[in-house]
């Protein structure tokens, strides 16, 4: 067990409480000073957020830093949450904005786009032949292919398709997170799926 500071216990709330409180109730409790509610929110969202951010930025360490920043912002700016939107919308918006900022920084540091790289330059390595014997290796192969295909999507397509097809959020929630009309979200997701299909043409 990690050594924890005395003031900020990272023990989750008791099981019965875990199912009793909604996210909105937890953030309300945290705003009133209950740090256990914060712990519970962190535990509920850290894996969801790192999945979203990792699929977005394609670098685990950087994704974890971004999720840390998101959780830290949740701690320091807890009073900025207003109970007019779902908590999940708010936290995904923070994480998404931080991830986009990271990609912008990366863009200024390195002007070469990933699509312009040769295969030898890419951070991820795809097996040259799809393994068909080992199931684990097969699923890893598919994951890497999909991850590589996602990275080729434009950012506005990438965000919505991750939120919809991996995070399984509703269209309405995605619309609020990315702050674009519902119809635009649906259109972007549809186009992103068609584009992904073109990239994953050999996926069976």
């Amino acid at each position, binding site marked *: 067990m*990690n*050594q*924890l*500071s005395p*003031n*900020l216990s*990272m023990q989750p709330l008791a099981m019965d409480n875990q199912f009793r409180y909604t996210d909105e109730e937890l953030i309300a409790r945290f705003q009133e000073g209950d740090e256990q509610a914060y712990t519970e929110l*962190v535990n509920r969202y*850290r*894996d*969801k957020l*790192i*999945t979203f951010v*990792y*699929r977005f930025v394609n670098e*685990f360490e950087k*994704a*974890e830093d971004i*999720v*840390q920043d998101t*959780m*830290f912002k949740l*701690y*320091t*700016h807890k*009073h*900025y949450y207003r109970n007019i939107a779902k908590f999940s919308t708010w936290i995904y918006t923070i994480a998404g904005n931080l991830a986009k900022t990271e990609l912008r920084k990366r863009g200024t540091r390195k002007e070469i786009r990933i699509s312009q790289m040769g295969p030898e330059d890419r951070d991820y390595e795809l097996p040259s032949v799809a393994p068909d014997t080992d199931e684990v290796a097969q*699923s890893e192969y*598919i*994951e890497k292919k*999909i991850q590589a295909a996602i990275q080729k999507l434009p950012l506005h397509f990438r965000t919505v*398709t991750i939120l919809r*097809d*991996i995070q*399984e959020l509703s269209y309405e929630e995605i619309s609020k997170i990315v702050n674009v009309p519902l119809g635009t979200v*649906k*259109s972007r*997701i*549809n186009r992103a*799926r*068609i584009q*992904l*299909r073109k990239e*994953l*043409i050999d*996926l*069976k």
Partner: protein
Amino acid sequence: MDRYQFEDAISAYLENELSLSERQAFDTYMNANPDAKELVDAIRLTMKSMKNLPVIKTSDNFILNLSKRIEFEKNRPSKKIVKRPSKSLFGFTPLYAGLMTVLVASFITVGINLWPINEESVDIAPTFMGNISEAPKPASMLPTLPADSKTMLTAANVDTADSTIDKKKKYKLDDKVKFVKDQH
């Protein structure tokens, strides 16, 4: 249904968001175009594969690092932790609202003091209605003022509405004021 309409409706079809008539039109197009059916099946497979991607987990040190960071910020002299945002007046915090009010009041005061109040300084040339080519009239033909005109002009210059004029009048109060003391 044409190809563009078909492609636009793929997601709605896969997520059962089409109306019955739209769904029938979609199915008709798909059955008539084998490549369209292939595309829909492929997209369905991609969506399924994406849904089955493994959940990424944070590292074991995530919580520890986060709690260390929060403790560090708590103990820092200049804390980043934002307290409850103060109430605002028309979007300004009380401090900025106060400063803005003082600034506006100062501006109005200075503006009033600098505003020109003496409009008589504006020189307007008198209009001449006569013929400039006419010879000047002799002095005997000029209209003469009546004898008491000087007195009249002086009287006309007195503005009775002007409260600044000394209106001290000498009242004769002889025998009109009696002191109460005298009644005894």
